[in-house]
């Protein structure tokens, strides 16, 4: 079924390169979000003043809030991972909000983007767990407290990247689809439901970026500890 400007919901423009297929519209939006984050970081750190104003103030608020959260969740070892967490949050925030601009779509409405981030975070969790606890102790902890628990532990480890990815993807895609549908259903001269839904989507984008970051921090905190 075709709606909303003549493109199917959930269909992507494809590009073929080196035998692989890419969703090129998602990639354009990802690069745009990256450019925005880099520009914000560049302009916020020019001519740093001790008492911040303007853009530096806003970015400092976000960074200090996240650093406090990292300190609380991950302990003193978490400082090493602070750049990753802050970049993750800023990129996901920009990506989620990009879809609210008329004419643009979020890169996170593609399962590939969110699954990529989730696999990156969980891969980091596993590798850091093996590095900090040693291979033997790490694999042994799957069998605690009883041997049959290995099934439950493996299911839990597999469900972490899946739920991380699908939570973000589902929220952002459902929001975008509803924006399109409200555009079709509501007459053009009373756009009240559209405005209300856009406002709520700003909130949802912020909350989902924060939840993804918080959960990543929580999983990483578990792998940074030495032993139970």
């Amino acid at each position, binding site marked *: 079924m075709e709606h909303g400007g003549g493109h199917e919901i959930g*269909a992507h423009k494809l590009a073929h390169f080196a035998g692989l297929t890419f969703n090129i519209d998602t990639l354009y939006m990802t690069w745009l979000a990256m450019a925005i984050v880099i520009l914000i970081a560049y302009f916020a750190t020019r001519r740093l003043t001790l008492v911040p104003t303007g853009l530096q103030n806003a970015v400092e608020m976000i960074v200090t809030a996240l650093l406090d959260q990292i300190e609380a969740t991950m302990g003193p070892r978490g400082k090493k991972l602070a750049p990753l967490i802050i970049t993750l949050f800023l990129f996901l925030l920009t990506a989620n909000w990009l879809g609210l601009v008329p004419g643009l779509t979020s890169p996170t409405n593609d399962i590939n983007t969110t699954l990529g981030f989730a696999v990156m975070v969980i891969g980091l969790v596993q590798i850091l767990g093996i590095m900090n606890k040693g291979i033997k102790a790490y694999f042994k902890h799957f069998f605690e407290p009883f041997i049959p628990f290995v099934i439950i532990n493996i299911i839990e480890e597999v469900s972490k990247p899946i739920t991380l990815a699908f939570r973000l993807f589902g929220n952002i895609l459902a929001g975008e689809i509803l924006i399109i549908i409200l555009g079709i259903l509501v007459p053009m001269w009373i756009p009240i439901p559209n405005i209300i839904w856009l406002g709520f989507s700003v909130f949802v984008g912020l909350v989902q970026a924060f939840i993804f970051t918080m959960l990543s921090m929580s999983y990483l905190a578990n792998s940074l500890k030495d032993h139970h």
Partner: protein
Amino acid sequence: MEHAIIVAASAIGAGLAIGLAAIGAGIGDGAVTAKAIEGMARQPEAKGTILVNMLISVGLIESIPIIAAVIAIVLVFANPFLK
């Protein structure tokens, strides 16, 4: 005939999915928010922390209902069974 069955089944499936998701999300979020407000009433100084935790919990609880909503929307508007 087959087309009609697919459309009807998709419509019923979508309705069930979104209805049950709404019930689940409503009950879950209601339980969390009730306890959160109770906590805020008992200790107004902890309002900020409780509010942040409540929002995070609502986001987590709503993950599966939102996936159900996506499935319902896909079944109605971008049905993969109808080509």
